[in-house]
């Protein structure tokens, strides 16, 4: 609902606007734009111009909302899945959405006459699908699953259907999958404590020319090209925009970045974080990695100082600005409302205090808004609290640069 959430800071109810950065704290108004849309979000993805967002409210449906400033209006509800939709990816160029679910299926959705039409993809999985990503050229997509395999799917013109090819080699659930900018390499993070890079080369879809300069094994589909160990389950993997670095985060509260992953891949930095584990990571630039997880705040890991290091939590001293328009409720109704909302967001009705961070519970997804060079000026996060927050990375970066000079 579009009214001001009950947890908005008190200063807004007194009619004052949040002020710009003060001293050493990151507190500018325009840095984060948060909105609680549903109770809990399991996955989300934006279209090419960030006007529409597809999300799953932790059930078998996919909702498509239109973002208009700070308001979100629901436009479509897609109900073909039978179980929780675990991942959604919206291809910016071809405007197709791929969704995968715990019902072991994936659907590719195409917009026809204002309606989203699904095409079922036979993944040949006997366990839930956990993650799905379009390849950079949007001609293939990879699905990670609890069946300990990755399913790489491509479209076969002659039969007008999506065919899947299986990559095995994992010893446990594959939690996350991502593509390298060269459209060939696929990286995966698994509960068998390893992050791996495979070749996702599909004859007929990928050309022989694209193999130039790549290691020998790259021509064979499913060929394992690299393997990295972690001491905790690997929750997420990400390639940098230039494809030179691979980052992955583990449940042991570490994040590892492998520089030069296409070459020798020998240079690996393991950062022990003084935080709770990260659940998802994404590069916003070649030297900046944002991680999100159980600390309810995005964190920045940067190479600006010469080597990779944890810089800081981005959500400090409460950036919450939510809706900066509209009156706030100050009646007894709002405190009762806050109590129930606390129960929904934090799982307990005893604590009615809002957490200082924008997110009130674990952040599970981060989606960078990428320009054509792969770098992002903004990114959005969603989590178990049902909040979607759009972060202005450019502004944050400037503030950080200003602070370090001070």
């Amino acid at each position, binding site marked *: 609902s579009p009214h001001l959430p009950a947890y908005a800071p008190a200063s807004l109810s007194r009619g004052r606007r949040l002020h710009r950065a003060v001293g050493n704290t990151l507190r500018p108004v325009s840095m984060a734009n948060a909105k609680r849309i549903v109770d809990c979000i399991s996955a989300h993805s934006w279209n090419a111009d960030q006007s529409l967002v597809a999300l799953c409210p932790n059930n078998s449906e996919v909702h498509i909302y239109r973002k208009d400033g700070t308001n979100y209006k629901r436009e479509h509800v897609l109900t073909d899945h039978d179980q929780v939709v675990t991942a959604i990816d919206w291809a910016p160029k071809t405007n197709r959405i791929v969704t995968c679910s715990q019902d072991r299926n994936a659907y590719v959705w195409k917009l026809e006459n204002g309606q989203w039409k699904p095409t079922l993809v036979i993944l040949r999985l006997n366990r839930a699908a956990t993650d799905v990503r379009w390849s950079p050229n949007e001609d293939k997509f990879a699905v990670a699953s609890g069946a300990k395999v990755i399913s790489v799917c491509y479209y076969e013109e002659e039969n007008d259907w999506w065919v899947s090819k299986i990559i095995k080699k994992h010893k446990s659930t594959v939690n996350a999958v991502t593509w390298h900018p060269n459209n060939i390499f696929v990286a995966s993070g698994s509960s068998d404590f390893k992050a791996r890079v495979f070749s996702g080369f599909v004859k007929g879809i990928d050309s022989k020319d694209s193999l130039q300069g790549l290691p020998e094994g790259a021509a064979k589909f499913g060929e394992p090209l690299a393997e990295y160990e972690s001491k905790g389950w690997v929750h997420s993997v990400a390639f940098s925009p230039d494809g030179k670095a691979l980052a992955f985060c583990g449940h042991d509260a570490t994040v590892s970045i492998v520089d030069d992953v296409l070459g020798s*891949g020998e240079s690996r930095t393991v950062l022990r974080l*003084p935080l709770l584990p990260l659940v998802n990571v994404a590069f916003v630039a070649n030297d900046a990695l944002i991680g999100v997880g159980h600390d309810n705040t995005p964190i920045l890991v940067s190479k600006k100082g010469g080597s990779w290091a944890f810089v800081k939590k981005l959500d400090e001293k409460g950036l919450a600005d939510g809706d900066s328009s509209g009156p706030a409720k100050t009646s007894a109704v709002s405190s009762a409302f806050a109590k129930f909302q606390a129960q929904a967001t934090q799982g307990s009705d005893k604590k009615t205090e809002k957490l200082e961070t924008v997110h009130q519970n674990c952040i599970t997804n981060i989606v960078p808004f990428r320009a054509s060079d792969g770098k992002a000026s903004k990114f959005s996060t969603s989590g178990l609290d049902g909040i979607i927050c759009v972060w202005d990375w450019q502004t944050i970066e400037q503030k950080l640069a200003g602070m370090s000079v001070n």
Partner: protein
Amino acid sequence: RKCTKAGNMADDSGDIGPKTVPDEELLAQIKERESKVSSLISSNTKEALIASLQNPPVATKNQEIKDANAKIVFKVLAAIKEMEIKGAVAALSPDDSDVLMKYVYKGLETQPKMSPSLLKWHAAITAKDGLGTITRALVERQTV
């Protein structure tokens, strides 16, 4: 790992997780550590602590070996007074803090008499190195 090498894959015997080290090697390391710590413990407790935390015998399933090493660490912890805990923790590298946190949890499990001081150690380590040390103590499969 070189991109063309996939050698490690063939070694996987189906067991998920890190590899083990032969027991004899570990026993030898423990003996060495014990003598080093004994010599330091009366003169420089900070150094003794750091020495006791190096290369813990995590790569084995043999509980006796782990207990033998734990004995050394607990000896040093007992020798450090409460007032000195903060200073001793400050001298530790992040690696050592992680190992010490694991021994704190092991101590809370097996050494009930040490609980009050172990809780102080726990607080000191968390203050310095954050919640990540606790997470790693709980998550890492190779335990001390």
